[in-house]
């Protein structure tokens, strides 16, 4: 009965304050969408890190005829130099950094090049001796690229040491900036949502002060008096959270998995199911913020 009573009060409160309730729904919807977007970006970054870090290698390119770096002054790498470099890479002192070393000859380099640029006319004009031979080094910890760079960049016969990870890092920086911007916008919007909830609950409490006054006099408990108001804010925020979840899911499903995944088949995109993992957090965040905000407001504006 008390439960039914609270629900009835809640219903009448929502009806009386419909415009304000809708505005809470919309503001929480937008702000939680931004929070969720930031979260998804982070998930995407992690996903790509996990995917690429296993595959990225440090390439130690060896000198060819037309190399210009000082360590290549003596011309193309000699067999002796090549054997030395391989020996150092595979030695015990590097075994804690290096997991595998693969040698890529000029012919293999041409093969990879031709695969990669299969549709480009450039393929026909490139010959094997223009491409450097290289050691492809997989690191135990991809962050320890500097060790290899320092050890080999000035070794005779080594043209340049390049870390494929650097390219990714730049991409991740952009994604991190984007998610920071999304979070900032989300923060401002969430603040708006909290203030809006406070104002709405205050109005709601004021418009029902006659009822609450009587409830107080006949000995209704604090919970029965306050719950309808708190629920009013929380339900609006939760609806906003559900809308945000739906939007994020649609973006992940249609934009990421639909369009982008087709355009970049080798990139691992997060799936729309990951949005559903994020959803409870978003809804909880919205609900808790609204609940706390309305409780604090009620403490000031509703005598119990």
């Amino acid at each position, binding site marked *: 009965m008390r439960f039914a009573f609270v629900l009835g009060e809640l219903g009448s409160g929502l009806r009386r304050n419909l415009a304000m309730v809708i505005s809470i729904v919309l503001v929480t919807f937008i702000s939680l969408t931004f929070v969720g977007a930031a979260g998804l970006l982070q998930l995407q970054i992690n996903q790509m890190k996990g995917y690429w870090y296993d595959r990225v290698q440090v390439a130690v390119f060896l000198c060819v005829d037309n190399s210009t770096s000082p360590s290549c002054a003596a011309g193309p790498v000699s067999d002796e130099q090549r054997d030395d470099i391989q020996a150092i890479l595979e030695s015990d002192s590097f075994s804690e950094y290096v997991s595998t070393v693969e040698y890529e000859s000029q012919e293999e380099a041409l093969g990879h090049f031709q695969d990669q640029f299969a549709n480009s006319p450039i393929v026909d004009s490139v010959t094997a001796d223009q491409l450097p031979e290289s050691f492809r080094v997989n690191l135990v910890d991809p962050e320890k690229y500097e060790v290899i760079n320092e050890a080999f960049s000035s070794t005779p016969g080594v043209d340049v040491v390049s870390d494929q990870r650097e390219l990714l890092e730049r991409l991740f920086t952009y994604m991190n900036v984007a998610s920071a911007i999304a979070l900032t916008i989300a923060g401002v919007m969430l603040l708006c949502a909290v203030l809006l909830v406070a104002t709405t609950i205050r109005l709601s409490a004021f418009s029902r002060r006659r009822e609450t006054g009587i409830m*107080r006099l*006949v000995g209704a408990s*604090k919970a029965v008096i306050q719950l309808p108001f708190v629920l009013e804010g929380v339900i609006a925020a939760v609806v906003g959270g559900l809308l945000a979840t739906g939007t994020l899911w649609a973006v992940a499903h249609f934009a990421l998995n639909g369009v982008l995944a087709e355009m970049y088949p080798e990139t691992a995109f997060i799936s729309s199911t990951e949005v559903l993992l994020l959803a409870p957090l978003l809804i909880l965040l919205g609900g808790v913020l609204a609940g706390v905000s309305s409780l604090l407001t009620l403490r000031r504006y509703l005598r119990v």
Partner: protein
Amino acid sequence: MIRFDTVTKVYDNNSRPALDAVSLEVDRGEFVFLVGASGSGKSTFIRLVLKEDRVSRGAVYVAGQNVANIPSWRVPKLRRGIGVVFQDFRLLPNKTVFANVAFAMQVIGKSRAVIRETVPDVLQTVGLEGKNNRMPHELSGGEQQRVAIARAIVNRPGILLADEPTGNLDPTTSMGIMKVLDRINSNGTTVVMATHDDDIVNTMRKRVVELRNGSVVRDDAQGIYIGETEVSAQ
């Protein structure tokens, strides 16, 4: 049932106390008129019994319990044992007579079956049988006050506090309300009624406690009140 032990209530330090060292005991089942001009402390007395305000000095006991020691989460329980009626009725304008009375039971969690059974009985007690579905604005002032009384007693409180319940009513209607209060009192409910209506006090011949400037100046077992002349003499 209600005991005031040298109670002083000061609202702000620059003016005289609203109640000044008032000691008073109201026994179970008594009917007490609390009389005095406006500003004499009648409403403060009622507010202190309900723990709407805190005493400045002294102690208020309700049903043997010092209200100052009741934690805030227990205050609703204290108030369930006390019915209150006001001069301005305080009905919910968008609810029927039945719903107004039922409201007091709903908010403390009474079941629908109990409400359906109790409300008509109480409405009969206050003389409103057959008016269940009227809206407050369709009722006369006296009838509205009866609804308010029904709401105050529907949870069977041990105490009924009435703050100028006849203040907005003409003398004939007022006498009807007094009959209702008397009937409630004879069912065992302690009634404390604040008023400055001397006709009513003199007709009822109940205990009269007179307050003046926050102090008890008179406490007669079957007293009378000549309030209006005193006010004009001042």
